[in-house]
């Protein structure tokens, strides 16, 4: 008996030609949102190739590991040392200590990924294509700034959250813990915001000076290292403490991670002879200065 061959799925493709777009056009808001989302992806390597994915996590992973280490210590210290009474003597690391421990890693992340975010647009001249669309230079810079600031705050907060969770595991009563220590949460969020704003403004200025990402990253890292090293040498040379305290204001690391976030955590630098208001005012001046300088440089290179 002859078998009927099964019919194959078929179809024809018609080219319907060019279709005019009649949908909504959302203008500048949509443009800013698109740049914002894309900048978050660039900063975290999402939707990019293997190497672009690897680099940010090269810094984020160690910061998370430090946070996890602190969290494990906080979770098990009570169980292990609780009865011996050594826990109080050990002075377990706080959220402020964790912020300082992850400081250099997060600043390296800011230097490398901030340059990655800002420089290629100018080097490859993609920025022109953004600016000929419904978007101003201010829209462009503000969208990138907000995106990178949020990424920075996230990178700073994840280890803090790990420590908070670890601490929660270690306490007998969660309610009691939060009643006594609720203030620690706004403190570490405040610390992350303070450092996030500072590091974003700092690396944006470094990135505005060149369109080569490696050079921009080296400018930012080099400045941190050189200032830290020079202050170390001056300290060894025996300059007066007052002068040293003033010079410390030039060190972005100690200013943002130590002094300013220390004030938020209410852990003032006991060695400093300066009034608390001075680093805060200087911090504000630097943020404004970095931002205005970045804006002016971008305007001139437009």
């Amino acid at each position: 008996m002859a078998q009927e061959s099964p019919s194959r799925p078929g179809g024809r493709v018609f080219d319907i030609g060019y279709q005019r777009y009649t949908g909504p056009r959302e203008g500048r808001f949509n443009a800013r949102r698109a740049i914002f989302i894309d900048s978050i992806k660039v900063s975290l390597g999402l939707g990019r190739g293997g190497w672009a994915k690897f680099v940010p996590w090269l810094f984020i992973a160690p910061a998370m590991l430090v946070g996890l280490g602190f969290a494990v210590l906080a979770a098990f210290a009570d169980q292990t040392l609780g009865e011996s009474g050594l826990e109080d003597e050990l002075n377990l690391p706080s959220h402020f200590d964790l912020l300082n421990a992850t400081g250099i890693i997060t600043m390296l992340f800011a230097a490398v990924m901030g340059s990655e975010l800002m420089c290629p647009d100018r080097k490859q001249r993609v920025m022109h294509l953004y600016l000929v669309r419904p978007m101003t230079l201010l829209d462009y810079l503000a969208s990138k700034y907000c995106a990178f600031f949020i990424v920075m705050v996230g990178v700073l907060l994840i280890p803090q959250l790990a420590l908070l969770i670890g601490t929660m595991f270690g306490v007998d009563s969660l309610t009691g813990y939060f009643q006594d220590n609720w203030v620690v949460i706004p403190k570490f969020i405040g610390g992350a915001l303070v450092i996030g704003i500072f590091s974003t403004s700092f690396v944006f200025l470094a990135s505005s000076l060149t369109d080569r990402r490696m050079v921009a990253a080296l400018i930012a890292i080099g400045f941190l290292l050189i200032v830290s090293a020079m202050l170390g040498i001056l300290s060894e040379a025996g300059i007066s403490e007052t002068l040293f305290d003033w010079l410390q204001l030039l060190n972005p690391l100690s200013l943002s991670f130590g002094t300013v976030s220390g004030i938020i955590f209410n852990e003032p630098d006991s060695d400093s002879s300066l009034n608390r208001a001075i680093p805060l005012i200087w911090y504000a001046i630097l943020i404004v200065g970095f931002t205005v300088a970045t804006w002016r440089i971008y305007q001139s290179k437009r």
Partner: protein
Amino acid sequence: MTIKSSSPLLNADNLSKQYGSVQALDNATFEVHPGITGLLGPNGAGKSTAIRIFLGLTDATSGRAEIMGSDANNAETRTRLGYMPEHDCLPDNLSASYFLTLMAEVSGIPRRRARALAADTLRHVGLFEERYRPISTYSTGMKQRVKLAQSLVHDPVLILLDEPTAGLDPNGRTEMISLVRKIHLEFGINVVLSTHLMHDVERTCDRIVMLDNGRVAQDAEVAKLTEETQTFYVEVTANREQFSEALGKRGIRHSVVASSVIIPNLSGERLDAVRDALVESNAPLRRMAPQQRALIDIFRGN
């Protein structure tokens, strides 16, 4: 944004731009209407400056630039404008699909629609199959197509193409010119083509605006500029010298260039005299045609 249908697409009203001691544009006044318009001129004529002013990338020193009836500095106006720069402007680590989707979003198109528009536009420029490959792996011709596609992806009313055939081989140039014509004839998008290549303009444009030293030297339809002249080319296969003598006897000024006899200011009775000279010299006629002006002659001021 509302587009004023009665307004010209572009309107330059006494537009001037001074860069230090250099006068890039000098009271240039011209309009661009629907169709394909060539913006012509030698290097330094002010073409790129005019385009940069219309795109809002630089401000005019004096005068007024309008896009579809709105000020060129109004960012929202640029939702319906596309721009293909001469220089490289593509991110090498992204796929064409991702890049075009981002560009559509930055132009105000919602994300879901932006993806569909990106795919459609890449199909129209012949890159549909390669749309997920990183742009860095594309050939020069393919990169030019991506540059063109990003200017089209948001379905603009007008696109400004700056030297779109730059760096392409003869085949690539022909394809690009066909694509430019297709964009207007099939897609209904108006085009301003900035170039110094006369042949491209003759093959593509309906109208030209010619700039020279920042001033408008010509503003006319291509057909009128290249219309037939009263100079005739007469080509005979034999007895060329006798034909020349016969013309001389009748007082007809002419010159012999290679195989052709060129006769200026030929009309009316003088045409009959040429016919008689051909008969008298017994010269077999191969071709007799009026000379067409070439844009290059206008460009050179002939």
